[in-house]
């Protein structure tokens, strides 16, 4: 039951992030929506997959995947934002 709540919460965060990516009008706003909700949603969903069937050997791989995701995703988001800012991309522009 707890596992399904966690998986559902992760799916909800993913849907909210996707709506943000589609609806926001700015590169930086879209980066905010994508970076925050992708991190939280995928981490919660993977924790839900860990809880789903007790303590098995695959929990180590899932834990490593969560750690890798939580380390690399903010770096990629920051790199994209830094690239856009250093190239003098203006806020509010670009559809």
């Amino acid at each position, binding site marked *: 039951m707890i596992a399904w709540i966690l998986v559902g919460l992760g799916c909800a965060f993913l849907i909210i*992030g996707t709506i943000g990516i589609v609806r926001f009008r700015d590169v930086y706003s879209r980066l905010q929506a994508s970076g925050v909700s992708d991190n939280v949603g995928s981490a919660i969903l993977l924790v839900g997959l860990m809880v789903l069937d007790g303590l098995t050997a695959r929990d180590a791989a899932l834990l490593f995947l969560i750690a890798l995701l939580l380390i690399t995703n903010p770096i990629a988001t920051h790199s994209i934002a830094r690239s*856009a800012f250093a190239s003098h991309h203006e806020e509010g522009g670009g559809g």
Partner: protein
Amino acid sequence: MAIVEGIVLATLLVVLARLLFGPTPWDRLLAANSAATRVLLLMAILAVVEDRTLYFDVAIVYAAISFLGIVIVARVMERAGGIR
């Protein structure tokens, strides 16, 4: 579990639409990052559902390679002063 796969796949398709129609190159890069995260989640769900440990290794390598590619493309666009 099939409905969870369906939800992740639907968000993946919507993000791919942003990758296709994104007005600026950074939008496309952002959409590629999000799509890579969602593909990774699909691989993890598939590994748990079908009980195959091999898919985890594929997911880990996929995450590392997509991270490297996105950071390198962002740095190249920063050096070039933006591709309009």
